[in-house]
C-alpha cells in the first residue's frame, strides 16, 4: 500500500512530457490514417474517417503542421537523453539478445536505450523532410508556385519518408506493448524501481544517487540545532 504524499516508483515522464508525447502520437496516427489513402488505393476507405476524400486531402496538411510543431517541442526536451553513448552501440550489437528477451546479457543503459534513441533520430530526420516535401505539394496554397521538378521530388520524398516514418512508428508502438511497464510509464509517468534497474540501470543508479542525496539533506535538517542558536530565542 502506498503512503499518502509518497508515490511509488520513479518518475520517468512528467506531466508536460506526457501531454506533449500524446499530442504528437495522436496527430501522427491521424496523419498516417489520412495519408495512406493517397499512398495506395488499397487504403482508400480510410478517407471515410475524415469526412470523404476531398476533406481528407484538406485536413491532412493542417494536422501535419500541428504535429511538426509539437514534435519539435518534444525533440528539444528529449535531445540530451537521446545522444548516443558507447554502451548503446554494444546494446545494438546484441540486438538478438534484446529480441529474445535475454536481458541479463545486455549492458546497462541510461534513460533511453539505443532502440529508443534510433526512433528519436529517425523521426528527427523524417519530420522536417515530411514538412518541407509536404509544403511543396500542398494544394491550393503552395504547390502552384513550385517548379514542376520540385513538385515531383516533393511527392516522391513525401511518400518514401512517410514509409520510413510509418515503419518506425509501428516498431515504436510494438515496443510499448512488448516491454511491460513502458506504456504505463507514458500514461501515468511512473515506473517501478525494479523496472528501472532492469531496463535502464544507469538511469536507475542516477535516480538512486539523487534520492540518497535528498535523504541526507532531510536527515541534516532533522538534527537538533546547536545550543548557541537556541540561546537567541
Amino acid at each position, binding site marked *: 500500500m502506498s503512503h499518502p504524499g509518497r508515490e511509488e516508483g520513479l518518475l520517468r515522464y512528467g506531466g508536460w512530457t506526457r501531454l506533449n508525447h500524446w499530442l504528437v502520437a495522436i496527430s501522427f496516427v491521424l496523419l498516417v490514417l489520412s495519408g495512406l489513402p493517397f499512398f495506395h488505393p488499397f487504403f482508400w476507405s480510410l478517407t471515410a474517417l475524415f469526412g470523404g476524400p476531398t476533406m481528407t486531402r484538406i485536413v491532412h496538411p493542417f494536422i501535419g503542421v500541428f504535429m511538426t510543431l509539437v514534435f519539435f517541442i518534444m525533440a528539444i526536451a528529449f535531445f540530451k537523453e537521446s545522444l548516443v553513448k558507447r554502451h548503446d552501440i554494444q546494446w545494438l550489437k546484441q540486438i538478438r539478445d534484446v529480441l529474445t528477451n535475454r536481458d541479463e546479457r545486455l549492458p546497462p543503459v541510461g534513460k533511453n536505450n539505443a532502440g529508443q534513441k534510433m526512433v528519436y533520430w529517425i523521426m528527427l530526420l523524417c519530420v522536417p523532410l515530411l514538412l518541407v516535401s509536404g509544403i511543396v505539394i500542398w494544394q491550393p496554397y503552395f504547390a502552384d508556385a513550385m517548379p514542376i521538378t520540385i513538385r515531383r521530388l516533393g511527392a516522391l520524398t513525401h511518400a518514401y519518408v512517410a514509409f520510413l516514418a510509418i515503419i518506425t512508428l509501428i516498431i515504436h508502438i510494438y515496443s510499448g*506493448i512488448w516491454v511491460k511497464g513502458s506504456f504505463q510509464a507514458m500514461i501515468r509517468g511512473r515506473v517501478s524501481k525494479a523496472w528501472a534497474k532492469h531496463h535502464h540501470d544507469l538511469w536507475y543508479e542516477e535516480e538512486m544517487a539523487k534520492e540518497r542525496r535528498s535523504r541526507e539533506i532531510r536527515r541534516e535538517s532533522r538534527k537538533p540545532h546547536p545550543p548557541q542558536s537556541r540561546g537567541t530565542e
Partner: protein
Amino acid sequence: MRGGQINLQDIIARSATTVPSPQVRDGGIDPVTKLIDVSRCIGCKACQVACSEWNDLRDDVGECVGVYDNPLDLTPDSFQVMRFNEYENEQGNLEWLIRKDNCMHCAEPGCLEACPAPGAIVQYANGIVDFNSEHCIGCGYCVAGCPFDIPRISKKDSKAYKCTLCSDRVFHGLEPACVKSCPTGSIMFGTKEDMLDLAETRTNFLKSRGYENAGIYDPEGVGGTHVVYVLQHADKPEIYNDLPKDPRISPMVDAWKGVTKPLMSAAVGLAALTGFFHYVTAGPKEISAEDEEAVRADESSEEERQ
C-alpha cells in the same frame, strides 16, 4: 468510325484502380486522333472560341501584354491556347509558327498514373483521357504527373481541368468543337490510322515545298498520343513554345507511383504482423515479482543502514 460508348463500359484505364474497369464494350472501337497541322494554321483562334462555346467556359478577359497569345497560358477555364512563335529559319527568313496547345491524350497518361483518387481520371477505348471531376479531390498530383504541363486546378472548386477532346461530342459521333470551327482544315479528326495517313501526305507535301525536316509529332515516350502534330521542323519541336523533344513520364513520377508503393504497403502490413508474432513467440519483457521484491528489500535495508 465509332467514337465509343457514353455508358462507361469501355474504360481501358482508370486512376488509382488495381482491378479491371468495365470494358466489355471496347470491341471494334477505333482509337481516335486529332491532327493539328501547324503549317496550315493562320492563328485565327476560332478553335479557342469554339472550345469556350461548346464547353460553356468563359475565362476572364485578360490584358494584352503585347503578344497575340491570349490568355498567356492554359487556365482551368481555357482548355486550349494558341501559342505564337516568331522563328528565324536558316535562310534568315521569319516563320510564324502557331501551335494550338492542349491536352495530348497520351496512350500512357502521366496524369492518370499519378492520380490517387479512384476513377477521377479515365481512359476510354477510343484513347480519350478524361477527367471525371466529380471524383477529383484537388490534390494536384496530375499536374506533377503530366509531361506536357496541361492540367490546371480551378480556384473556384479546387478541381483539375483540361481538354476532354470533346468526349461528349465524340460519343455522339461528332468531331471536337475546335475541329468543326477550323476554317483552314488545320485541325482534323478521325481514326488514328486515317490521321497518320493524312499527316504523312501533308509531311510529304511540306518536304516537296522545301521543309526538309517536316514530320509528325506522335511521341513514342508516352506510347504515342491521340493529338498529333504536323510540324514544319519536326527535328526541333522545342521551337514551338517548348514542345518537349522526347516527352515521357518523369522517372521521379515512376519511382513515386511504380511498384514500390504496393511493396511498401505490404511491408507496413508485414511489420505489424511481425510484431504480433514476435509477441506470440518471444513473449513480453516483464519484471518478475521476485525482482520487484528484491529491489524493494535492497532499498529498505539501505534506508535502515543510514
